[in-house]
């Protein structure tokens, strides 16, 4: 599989919904150099399930991780998919980016299509305060169940207290 095929399938499924699509290339290897292509694009949250279905139709689909960032008034989520493992150099990395407002950080869950996405979605619930509609299990995973703060939110005042407390403790022992 190559990046052009994957990008064409995504464009077919999403049309204008796939914004700023981009293939980033670089060369790896010394003796027999080959070109590695990554797909990056931006979508609306309403198209996430369609995009995932389109990728799944292409071959074995792996979700590496969902990265997330607080970018002010919005939360950005980056879905890093790997499409088509199992052949030499045949895997294409696809990163789909979407933003949700902090006032309603709701995203559809991928668990219906990729059950293995549950771990990374649960991590985003506790760390960024995102809600995933349709996730089978929304309990905290890494953080204690009663921890109410979302540590990756930049406007989270409680986090600073955590960090400063740790520094004070280190100094006392130093």
């Amino acid at each position, binding site marked *: 599989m190559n990046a052009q095929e994957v990008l064409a399938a995504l464009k077919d499924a999403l049309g204008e919904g796939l914004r700023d699509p981009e293939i980033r290339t*670089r060369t*790896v*290897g*010394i*003796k*027999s150099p*080959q070109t*590695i292509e*990554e797909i990056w694009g931006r979508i609306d949250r309403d198209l996430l399930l369609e995009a995932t279905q389109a990728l799944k139709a292409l071959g*074995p689909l*792996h*979700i*590496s*991780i969902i*990265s*997330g*960032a607080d970018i002010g008034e919005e939360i950005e989520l*980056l879905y*890093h998919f*790997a499409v*088509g*493992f*199992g*052949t*030499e*150099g*045949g*895997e294409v*990395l696809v*990163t789909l980016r979407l933003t949700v407002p902090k006032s309603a950080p709701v995203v559809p869950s991928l668990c219906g299509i*990729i*059950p*293995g*996405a*549950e*771990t*990374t979605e649960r991590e985003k619930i506790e760390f960024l305060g995102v809600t995933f509609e349709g996730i089978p299990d929304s309990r*905290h*995973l*890494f*953080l*204690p169940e009663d921890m109410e703060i979302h*540590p*990756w939110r930049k406007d989270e005042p409680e*986090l600073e207290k955590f*960090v400063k407390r740790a520094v004070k403790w280190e100094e006392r022992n130093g």
Partner: protein
Amino acid sequence: MAEKTFEIPIGPVHPALKEPIRFTFQVEGERIVGVDIKPGFAHRGSEVVGTRRNLIQVLYLAERICGICSISHPIALTQAVENAAGIEVPPRAQYIRVIVSELERIHSHLLWAGVAAHELGFDTLLHLTWKVREKVMDILEELTGNRVDYAIPIYGGVRRDIAPEQYPQVYEMIRYYRGLFEELADRFLNDASVEARTRDVGVLTYEEAEALCAVGPTARASGLRKDVRQDWPYLVYGDLGVKAITPEDYGLETRGDVYDRIIVRLLEVAQSIDIIERCLEEMPEGEITSVPKIPALLAQLKKAEGEGIGRHEAPRGEVIHYIRLEAGVEAPVVWKVKAPTYSNLMPWVPMFRNQEIADIPIIAASIDPCMCCLDRVHLVRGTEERLVWKEELLKLSREKTRRIRSRITVHGSRVTDHGGKA
């Protein structure tokens, strides 16, 4: 007759993991009917800490995410940063990175094999495996200065070259492991009690492994030909033609059980030895870093703007790092790290289903090769509670091995004592 379901919490400290974790098993009699997994007891907030440090400091931090795959995270991180900042890596440095990561794979898989033998109550094999593991530890120390935390990758290259006088020692290690491989494989794979304890135990089917996004030897033992080194070439892995190993490469049908995970890891030790030998032969002379001066490197990284992904096939599977850099900011704006066990958490659930309590240690260990101390198991039966210590759970596992041994005739096993004290 409907049996009553009891809950057995195990952990948060458990012998088969480097991290503390809590399993809550639902059991009917001796049979496990469900499990709930709760990690996070050692969550250090590395990503938050990393976004408050400069990139050189982040590299040190990444190296300390895991003590066993202490080169895997730096390799993924340096690739992510190099992709984001457009930094080239000299050919020789790429080969050195590959050599050290394959050395790490050998030591990690041998460590795991020893742990697996111990969990089965086969301590003689544990001692044998860990004795032969010392050879690769010596080479790692010789080449990098350390047995763990090798501090080899830096953005734009590596920090230490392999000197000509060190080559013979590495070749000697290659001969040593080649000579031993048959014997190791024989003792693990042709031993009747090992087979009885691991065949059809902790099964993860192909479909489950694919749907749950399993990675590494766990996925390959279920028949998925999934290996980042093969699927998504990076460094010089594309040149080396690395192929994912499944039990079929050993001439057996894939069953996705613990025995298959032993096969895959043992074959990967042999594969890593071949890779190291080829790297030594093919490695060109030349620079080992494109930006040798750290202040210049820091200044270049501070100016960099962009985002990048780095991936690596660690001994346990896919590691991925995502990084975002902004010009004028020393620290990364976003840093996301994923370790292989993260992806292998969910595949644990089907593995435990319908298994016996005595198989918990070996199934838990079958995913992750690290050893730490199990504090206790908190056994709850109705209102009656008691503590089961590590020794008691190990005793259960060992008694099962002895029961099996008394039922089967052991042919061809040269190791006669499967006992040993905890």
